[in-house]
């Protein structure tokens, strides 16, 4: 695979840096690949990627935090990147995996940072282990407690049924399922739909650090049996209600460009839940992937917040 031979990686964007170290953590039998940037002796921080991302989507953002004096510790979630594919996926399993990574770090409070699903995960983890967190940064990972306000009860019920039907239809197609192969350019183009403001150069670079090359083309290193969403009783307010009780400083960063990957939350949805003294930044003209689109801006916000 070309990821093993850096010379084959073309057009590495300025400032992008692959992890300084990789190590494995055994999370109840699932091999998780941990990615680290920065001095191993520096104060650690925990950084969680979003759903269908992987640690190396942080190759611009994480080095900025590392260069400011942190040991940045991220990991590929189960089924993502270089971590193992699992039999089952669930929110509880992801939290347990995160706790397994956290357990390998020095036993002291440290900042938790997470994007999207990862933001919601570290918020949950901060509730689970308040003694291990010193500050919390949530990057566009605050679900709205009031999403779909214009949808009638009837329509909501119909959506619930459609979601169940689609989920079961998906479950029936999983045997030997593979991701669709393509050229670097094709995978970059597909990813570009999630990251419409990113350059072709960056997207093609991302393919080379996040996909593997098979005989019939490149495939993202994401378990093809994973699926966005799913059906279940989860409600956004269950996550939001973790916010007011946080006992550590909190920074929320929200991209104000509405995108399909985003959660549709608006600042007004979040404000009532913020803990006293929490800082909240809405970024105009920036989409859901705030730290990928504007790594310098977001890294500076975080570094100032942590200082």
């Amino acid at each position, binding site marked *: 695979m070309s990821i093993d031979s850096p010379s084959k990686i073309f057009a590495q964007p300025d400032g992008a840096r692959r992890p300084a170290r990789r190590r494995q953590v055994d*999370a*109840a*039998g*699932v091999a998780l690949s941990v990615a680290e940037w920065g001095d191993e002796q520096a104060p650690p921080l925990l950084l969680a990627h979003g759903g269908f991302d992987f640690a190396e989507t942080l190759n611009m953002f994480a080095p900025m935090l590392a260069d400011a004096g942190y040991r940045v510790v991220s990991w590929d979630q*189960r089924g993502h990147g270089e971590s193992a594919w*699992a*039999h*089952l*996926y*669930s929110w*509880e*399993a992801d*939290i*347990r*995996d995160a*706790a397994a990574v956290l357990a390998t770090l020095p036993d002291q409070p440290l900042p938790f940072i997470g994007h999207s699903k990862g933001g919601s995960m570290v918020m*949950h983890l901060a*509730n*689970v*282990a308040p003694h291990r967190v010193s500050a919390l940064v949530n990057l566009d990972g605050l679900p709205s407690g009031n999403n779909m306000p214009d949808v009638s009860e009837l329509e909501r*019920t119909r959506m*619930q*049924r459609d979601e*169940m*039907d689609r*989920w*079961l239809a998906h*479950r*029936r197609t*999983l*045997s030997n399922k593979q991701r669709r192969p393509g050229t670097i350019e094709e995978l970059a183009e597909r990813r570009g739909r999630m990251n419409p403001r990113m350059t072709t150069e960056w997207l093609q670079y991302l393919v080379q650090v996040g996909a593997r090359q098979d005989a019939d083309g490149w495939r993202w290193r994401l378990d093809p*049996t994973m699926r966005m969403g*799913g*059906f*279940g*009783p989860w*409600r956004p307010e*269950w996550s939001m209600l*973790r916010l007011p009780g946080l006992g550590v400083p909190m920074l929320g960063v929200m991209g104000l460009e509405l995108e399909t990957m985003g959660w549709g939350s608006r600042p007004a949805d979040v404000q009532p839940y913020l803990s006293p003294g929490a800082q909240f930044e809405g970024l105009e003209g920036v989409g859901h992937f705030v730290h990928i689109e504007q790594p310098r801006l977001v890294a500076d916000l975080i570094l100032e917040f942590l200082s």
Partner: protein
Amino acid sequence: MTVSDEASKSIQSGDLVWVRHNRIDLALHVVATGDDPTHRPLLLLHGLGERTPSTVPANLRWPGPIYGLDFTGHGSSTIPVGGGYTSEILVGDVDAALEEIGQVTILGRGLGAYIGLLIAAARPTLVHGVVMSDGPGLVGGGIHPGSPSVPFPAPWAATTPDPFALIELARDVRPPDYAQTYVRFVIESSNLEKALMVCAVARPEWLAAVAAEPGVGHSTVDEALQMYAAL
């Protein structure tokens, strides 16, 4: 193979049909062939931590074949590595079994009763009545998440039931209005007068809400089975 057609005439008690659900091999047991092999089968869904019984439970009367599905991580089915159980996964387990055997009546114990409700909503033409009875895992994890924690199971023997199943499915949240929505899906789609029969004595919030819905019947397990057997 579809056992609902020709094969159903040749099944034997104790036979085991393997059903694939993604990376899990599920054990679908033939518990009894029944006096009338052409009658619609009864599908037993066990409770949390249980497995399909090896013989027909005492006092259970059904004229046709009786199957039992071992859920993921239970009985003879695959034990997944590293947990990740949800009720929705188990609904997928039952869906995979229905693809094998076709139309059934479901008798669910505890957790299996809850899963029976959800699959009846998802596959109204394949599920001809659900009998919801007492059993392990009936309560689930309450109506909203509790204080968050990360439980690791005790390192028990590497056999079923998977301890991850026990802790994760015991925390499965079941809001009453969520369960009611599925009752309404069932009622809307089914041509049965009573497509759901609540026979459990214990009534956690979700099941009390189900039982209070118009169109849901109440009886003993035996009465409910006799009613569905006659339809």
